């Protein structure tokens, strides 16, 4: 590892303070969408923290394989999707069940928000998670990806292994299912 980078990455120093560094910049630019994706795919703040850490660590280890054929954003999404898919597969194999009610919402709002606002955000996030959990993995992933305005249908198709037209068709159904289920949780 670059010694100057190592010095700047002291345990108590957040990456966000590393301004000019390329990898810190990558983290700063994309940690929010990667954390949000893992949170909503895994449904657990602690697992999402671990997953986000692991995704960026994998990205660091794979920096030499990034050729620039896709954007950093798409590249990180691909790592995150594969990582979450592997985790979910492992959990399914072990028959582990996550208690969504207890652990999903602890980190959903920032400390500076008023109590009422925190409650609102928690309730809304809770409804969103419950609704997403009732969708198929494919629909859940498509909705989360299309919510990122910077991703095109082509990029979503590449990430999910299908054509842009197939993405459009499935998204139409996914939106309808989400809307119907979301209303049920009201």
């Amino acid at each position: 590892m670059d010694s100057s980078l190592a010095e700047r990455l002291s345990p108590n120093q957040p990456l966000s303070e590393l301004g000019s560094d390329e990898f810190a910049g990558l983290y700063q630019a994309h940690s929010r969408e990667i954390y949000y994706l893992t949170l909503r795919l895994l449904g657990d703040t602690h697992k999402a923290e671990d997953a986000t850490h692991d995704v960026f660590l994998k990205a660091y280890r794979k920096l030499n394989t990034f050729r620039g054929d896709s954007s950093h954003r798409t590249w990180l999404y691909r790592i995150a999707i594969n990582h979450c898919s592997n985790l979910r597969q492992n959990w399914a194999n072990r028959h582990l069940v996550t208690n969504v009610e207890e652990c999903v919402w602890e980190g959903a709002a920032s400390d500076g928000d008023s109590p009422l606002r925190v409650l609102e955000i928690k309730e809304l996030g809770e409804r969103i998670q419950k609704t997403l959990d009732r969708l198929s993995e494919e629909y859940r992933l498509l909705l989360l990806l299309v919510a990122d305005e910077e991703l095109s249908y082509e990029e979503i198709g590449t990430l999910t292994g299908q054509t842009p037209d197939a993405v459009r068709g499935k998204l139409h159904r996914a939106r309808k299912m989400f809307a119907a289920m979301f209303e049920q949780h009201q």
Partner: protein
Amino acid sequence: MKFMKQQKKFESREQQQVSETQSQQKTSSREFASVEELLRYDAKQTTVPPGIAQRLGQSLQKEPRPARSWWRRWFR
């Protein structure tokens, strides 16, 4: 399809006048035009825990420096 969103909404001048005279009865609602909009709002409200960056910093200290990519070597 209707999603609730916090925003003060006045649909007409008449409604606005009523709300001005009955300010105590003003209501706020949340309304989203699409699933994407709802999820974007949710994403915006989600804070990335600062502990991740700290853990990542610790982990990266233990990592060897990544090798230069073949295409960088090729073009330099």
